[in-house]
């Protein structure tokens, strides 16, 4: 017995072309940054310090610029509402991943076009997009512009501290990545989430109505 037996599946268009492009671009950039960043920190030798350093800087700046487009997109499309955190059904989702998933129960908050993040995802992605990634970009940018600190009145900054923050961020992103890559296998089939992020369409369980709090419409939030 599995989810397909009890629920009717529908195909919905979940991720727009830009969203998918951004996701894969960002994952590639972060992948390269992790590999070259840990090398520059002295963990292993792959490209050699100089090449690793050059790649890391170039890709880091690329990420920063591309991220600006994402910020623009997330605000102009109203997609930012998908990131508003909530505690509703949070415990249900936690219970699902800790218990229900092993028993083949359906997901308590299936994806919808207007609510593609469950409460846990909202919290994680908000922390990521609004805190961890910006901290990583800012600390990286400061690290990169070390020689200008004096001229910018930032001479009080300590390179050791900035480097430590940047390294801690790197570890946090790597931890996220491991869990994230695993979580994409937890759709109704192992490849369902991945397929959705490639072609945009995901098969989800049909449900009559989505709940009020999940709707991201302007009218709803204004009310």
């Amino acid at each position, binding site marked *: 017995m*599995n989810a397909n037996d009890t629920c009717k599946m529908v195909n919905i268009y979940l991720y727009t072309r830009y969203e998918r492009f951004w996701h894969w671009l960002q994952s590639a950039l972060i992948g390269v940054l992790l590999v070259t960043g840990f090398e520059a*920190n002295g963990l292993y030798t792959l490209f*050699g310090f100089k090449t690793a*350093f050059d790649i890391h800087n170039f890709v880091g700046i690329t990420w920063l610029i591309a991220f600006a487009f994402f910020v623009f997109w997330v605000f102009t499309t109203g997609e930012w509402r998908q990131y508003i955190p909530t505690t509703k059904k949070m415990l249900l989702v936690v219970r699902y991943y800790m218990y229900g998933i092993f028993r*083949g129960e359906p997901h308590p908050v299936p994806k919808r076009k207007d609510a593609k993040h469950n409460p846990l995802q909202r919290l994680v992605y908000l922390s990521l997009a609004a805190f961890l990634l910006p901290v990583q970009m800012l600390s990286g940018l400061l690290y990169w512009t070390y*020689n200008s600190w004096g001229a910018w009145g930032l001479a009080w900054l300590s390179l*050791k501290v900035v*480097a430590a923050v940047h390294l801690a961020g790197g*570890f946090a992103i*790597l931890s996220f990545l491991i869990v994230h890559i695993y979580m994409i296998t937890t759709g109704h089939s192992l490849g369902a989430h991945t397929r959705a992020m490639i072609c945009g369409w995901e098969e989800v369980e049909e449900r009559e109505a989505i709940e009020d709090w999940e709707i991201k419409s302007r009218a709803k939030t204004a009310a």
Partner: protein
Amino acid sequence: MSIHSNEARCTSCHIGYGWKDKSFDFTDASKVDCLVCHEHTGTYKKFPAGAGNPVKEPILFPGDGITYLPPEWNKVAQSVGRPTRENCGVCHFYGGGGDMIKHGDLDSSMTKPNKALDVHMGVDGKNFDCTRCHTTSAHQVAGRIYSTPAATERRTLVQDDLTPRITCESCHTATPHKPGVKANDHTDKVACQTCHIPEFARALPTKMRWDWSTAGQKKDGKPYKEKGPLGTTVYDTQKGNFTWDKNVKPQYFWYSGRIDAVSLKDPVDPTQPVALNWPVGRPEDPNARIAPFKVHTGKQPYDTVNKTMLVPHLFGPPDSAAYWAKYDWQIALESGMKKAGLPFSGQFDFVETSYVFPTTHMVAPKEKSVSCNECHTKENSRMANIKGVYLPGRDGNKVIEVLGWVAVLGSLAGVLLHAFGRAVSRRRKEG
């Protein structure tokens, strides 16, 4: 080891005539030897033990077996001109008793170096002579680095046409690389020489160690010398054991342009190696840079009661108190300290010493400069001993690294456990 009681030998390199003891009058301009710097025939030779004087009649110097001839004064005097590399080299390549002894970056190979040995002085390249950088103002030659730095202001010719050309920055500025090259960002902490002189003594070996404590051994009752694998003397009855090396990686220290030294009155701690001199510089000093040095080690006599370094009377006639006459340290040290006018308890021993020489010549072509990886690494970093600066690749953060790996491996273990649970529960349902 010092000049006191040994003036006549040591001062053969001094540009004065007749500095044979401490009564020498430094204000007497008639004692200045113009020719040693300005003659161009290459025939003007001073007697090695003549207190800066050439000989008046042919005399054999037993130390090198050469018979020194009186200069042909007319020829020599008529040849004068701006100092050449040969002129400067007569003293600066041969300091400490011969070629390749003192400076790791200045020896006879620098008389006619190729570009690979010195990119500025290479005869197949820019062909600079010494005075190109060691500019002179009324006979004051730029480049002294003991009590005052060679340059106190970091001015360049770009800012001031009349600035001395003594530092690399004088011509190359503080941002000598192409715009955007990270090396430009290093010049606030790292001296140019640190990257651009990967090794010194690249053509000839240089002396790295001089152990005076083994001097005095004789073969068949006679003083002797022994050569080593590099073709250089490794034992000399007069001087003890030598160690030589070629293509030597420098050691690095913070350096603000001054070198301080122990004086004969300063107390020393014989329980550890005595630094006879050391580069002055702290990482917090905005004028300090990480700079390369040759560190010459040795063993030298010190007073075990007064805890000071001692000066032996080394050089003198066969019947004198000199060490090279009687091979008796006790007598030589008493005589040396007496002439220096300093106390000696009569008790002595040998102590491990070190002496630094700044490394600034033998600038290699840019392709040969030190690569990023040689410093920015955890293992065998050239900067392993440099403190006071966070060096990416060498330095990390142990706490964050441990916590980071706990988080990463914890996540990995968590998802693997979860995946295992899913696999088991699925099999159970299917079965």
